[in-house]
C-alpha cells in the first residue's frame, strides 16, 4: 500500500481556508432544524412535482442473498415503467444490485436510460483487503455497471485510521475511471453526527461523486438529521471549491410523505440545483409503490388498493 500522508487533505490546519474546517455538529440543534423542515406542508402541484422528482431520483434496490436473474429482471421492468397504466410516470434513475446480477439487469435495461449501480468493495462490511475491494470494483465495471456504490472501512474510521479510509476511496475512485462513485458511510455504525460530518468531508476530499448514508442493512439509517448533516457538508465543499457532490439517502425511506421531507431538506439546504437525479438519489425498494399510489390519488382524487400496483 502506498505511504499515506499523516493526515488527508482537509484535516490539516489550513494556512488558508481552502477546504471547509471540519467543525462539529450540535446534536440537539441539528435534530431541531431537521424537525422544523419536516413540517413543511407540500400540497397540490408542488406535491405532484415532488413525487415525480422522487421517482426520477430513485435507485430501485435489491441487495439480498436470494436475488436471482429473474427477480432482477422484474425489478428492471419496474424501473423502466413503474406504472404500466400511466405513461406520464417517469422511469427511476437506476437499479442497484450485487455484481453477479449486473448481466441480468443489463440485458433488461438496454436502451432504457436507467443506469446500473452495483455495490462493491466487500459490501456491506468493507472488512476485506484493499486488493480484493479493487478487484470487486473492476469486476463490477467489466460486467457493465455505470455506477459503483462502495462502502468505507468503518473499522478503520472508528479506530482513527482516517488515512486508510481516505486512501482506499482514492484507489477505488481511480479504479472507477469514468463511472460514478458513491461512497457509503454507513452512518448507523458511525455513532455521532460529528463522525458523519467527518466521514462526509473525508469521502468528498478523496473524490466521491456522491456520498451515501447507508447500506440499507441496518436500522436507523438515513434519518432526516443525518441527511441534513451530510447536505451541510456538501454545501461547505461547494462553497469552498465550487465542486458539486451528490447525495444519496438510502435505508428506511418508505413513504411518499417521507420522501418529500427529504427533498424539502435538499431544496432548502442546497437549493434547486441539487434537485436532479444527477445530484440526488434515494435508495429504496418499497417507496416506489407508495409514490405511485399517491400520484394516482392526486390525479384521480381516490386512493386505490395495493393490488393495483405491481410488486416486483
Amino acid at each position, binding site marked *: 500500500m502506498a505511504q499515506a500522508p499523516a493526515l488527508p487533505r482537509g484535516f490539516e490546519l489550513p494556512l488558508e*481556508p481552502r477546504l471547509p*474546517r471540519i*467543525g*462539529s*455538529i*450540535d446534536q*440537539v*440543534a*441539528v435534530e*431541531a*432544524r431537521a424537525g422544523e423542515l419536516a*413540517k*413543511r*406542508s*407540500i*400540497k*397540490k*402541484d*408542488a*406535491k405532484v*412535482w*415532488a413525487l415525480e*422528482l422522487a421517482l*426520477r431520483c430513485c435507485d430501485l434496490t435489491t441487495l439480498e442473498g436470494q436475488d436471482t436473474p429473474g427477480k432482477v429482471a422484474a425489478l428492471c421492468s419496474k424501473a*423502466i*415503467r413503474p406504472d404500466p397504466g400511466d*405513461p406520464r410516470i*417517469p*422511469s427511476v434513475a437506476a437499479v442497484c444490485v450485487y455484481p453477479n446480477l449486473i448481466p441480468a439487469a443489463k440485458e433488461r435495461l438496454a*436502451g*432504457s*436510460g*436507467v443506469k446500473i449501480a452495483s455495490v462493491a468493495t466487500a459490501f456491506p462490511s468493507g472488512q476485506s483487503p484493499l486488493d480484493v475491494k479493487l478487484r470487486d470494483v473492476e469486476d463490477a465495471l467489466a460486467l457493465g455497471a455505470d455506477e459503483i456504490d462502495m462502502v468505507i472501512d468503518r473499522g478503520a474510521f472508528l479506530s482513527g485510521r482516517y488515512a486508510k479510509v481516505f486512501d482506499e476511496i482514492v484507489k477505488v475512485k481511480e479504479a472507477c475511471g469514468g463511472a460514478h462513485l458513491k461512497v457509503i458511510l454507513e452512518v448507523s455504525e458511525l455513532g455521532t453526527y460529528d463522525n458523519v460530518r467527518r466521514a462526509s468531508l473525508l469521502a468528498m476530499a478523496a473524490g466521491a461523486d456522491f456520498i451515501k448514508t447507508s447500506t440499507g442493512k441496518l436500522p436507523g439509517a438515513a434519518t432526516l438529521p443525518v441527511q441534513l448533516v451530510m447536505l*451541510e457538508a456538501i454545501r461547505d465543499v461547494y*462553497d469552498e471549491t465550487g465542486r458539486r457532490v451528490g447525495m444519496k439517502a438510502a435505508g428506511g425511506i418508505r413513504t411518499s410523505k417521507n420522501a418529500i421531507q427529504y*427533498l424539502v431538506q435538499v*431544496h*432548502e439546504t442546497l437549493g*434547486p440545483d441539487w*434537485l*436532479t*437525479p444527477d445530484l440526488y438519489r434515494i435508495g429504496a425498494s418499497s417507496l416506489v409503490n407508495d409514490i405511485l399510489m399517491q400520484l394516482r390519488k392526486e390525479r384521480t382524487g381516490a386512493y386505490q388498493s395495493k393490488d393495483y400496483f405491481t410488486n416486483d
Partner: protein
Amino acid sequence: MTDVEKRSDRSPVPQDWTYAPAPESTEIVELRERYGLYVGGEWLDAKERYTTLSPRDESPLAEVAQASEADVRNAVAAAHDAFGTWSTIAGSERSKYLFRIARILAERAREFAVLESLNGGKPIKESRDVDVPLAAAHFFYYAGWADKLEYAFPNRTPKALGVAGQIIPWNFPLLMLAWKIAPALAAGNTVVLKPAETTPLTALLFCDVLRQAELPAGVVNIITGDGSTGAALVDSEVDKIAFTGSTEVGKAIQRRLAGTDKRLTLELGGKAANIVFDDCALDQAVEGIINGIYFNQGHVCCAGSRLFVQESIYEPLVEKLKKRMATLRVGDPLDKNTDVGAINSREQLDRIEELVAAGKDEGAEMYQAPCRLPERGYWFAPTIFTNVAQSYRIAQEEIFGPVLSVLTFRTPDEAIEKANNTPYGLSAGVWTEKGSRILWMAERLRAGVVWANTFNRFDPASPFGGYKESGFGREGGLHGMEPYLELTA
C-alpha cells in the same frame, strides 16, 4: 420504437419547485362583531370602542371595548369581591380549575393558534408549535403548585396578595396572559388583566375558556383598551401590578407607584448579545442566530439582536447567514410554510423603519433577504447590518423587529465587556463547543437568561426576567410564584 424505448427518453426535470399555498383555514374561529369587557363573569358593554385589525392585510376583525376609568374600577371591585373565597378555598380546588383551563386550552389549541396569527401577524407554525402549547404548559405547571405552597416555601407562610393588575404586550398575547394569570391564580390572587391594544382577541376568546372551566365569577377579569386603560389600572385599588412591555412605559409605571404599597414586577426591553465563538457548531449557530432574531419577526424582548462574532470566523459566518436568510419564507402568517410573518402594527413598522434608516445614516452596511413582500398589511424584510459599532443606535436601542446588528470580538474578555455594555440585561446566547467556556461566560454575562448553543427556549419550570433596564422580578418556575405571595415567617 418499442414502449420501453419511448420511456427511455427521460423528459427533463422541471427546474422550479414552488411550494403551493398551504393556508390554515380560519373557519375554526368564530369571531363576534363586537366584544365587551369581561368583568365578574359577565360581558359588560363599554361606551367607547375601537376596531382591531389583522396586520397581514389591515382588514378589520372585530370591535372591542375601550375601558374607561370607571370600567377599570368596576373590574377591580369585581376582583376584590372574588378574592375572599378564591384565596381561602383549598389549594387543591384552585389547582382543579387551573388544570381544567390547561386542558381546554390544549383542546382548543388550533382555534387559539389561528386567532393569534390572525390578530397578531405571527406565523401559524409558531402560534401552533410554540405560543399555544406553552401557554397550556404554564397552566399545567402552576396548577401543580397551587396545593403545595407550604412545601414550595418551607418555614414561611405563603399568603395571597389580593388583586393583581396585569398588563401584557402584543408580541405573545396568549402566552403572556398565561405567564401572568397562571401563577397569580395558583397563589390565590384574583386578576384584572389588560391585553395589548392591538392584540386583544385571544384574551377575549380565553374568557370563553374561563366560562367552560366554570371558574368562579370575578377571579379573572379581562378589560381591553389603550394605554389610558393601563394607566387607570395602575392607579386603581390593586395590590400588585405586573407589567410586560417597553422600558419607557415600565419606568412611568414605577414612578407612579413610588410611595404606594403596591407591589410591582416589570419585564421590559432587551438588546440581547448572541455570542458566537469560532469553535462553535457553525451551521447550528447560524440556525440559532436566525431563530434568535427572526422568531416572531423579532418582536421578542429577549431577541438576539446584537450578534457578536469572533473575528476569525466573521466572513464565513456572515456568508452563511446571508444565504440562510434568502431561504426564509416571508408572507401570509396563516400559511403553514411561512417562517416570518407580518409586523404587528403600523406604529411598530414606523419605529423599525426609523431605526433602520438611522443605521444606514450612521454608516452600517445593510443586507436584506431577497423576498417579495405582500402589498397590503405591515411588512419588513429580514435585515442584517454589518460594520456596526457599539455606538450606533442600532446597536444600542431595542428595535423590536427583524433587524440584526453584527459586531465582532477577539477574546472572551472582550465579548463579555461588549455584551454587558448595554442598559439592558434580559438574555444572552453563547455558542461554543467548549463546556467550560459556557460556564465561564454565563457567570459573567449580566443577563437574566443565558442560553448555550440554543436560543429562545422557554419552559414553564424555568424562571425568566431581567437585569438593569430589562426589569425586575421573575416569571416562570417557583420564582414566578414569589411576586404573587406574601411570605411571612
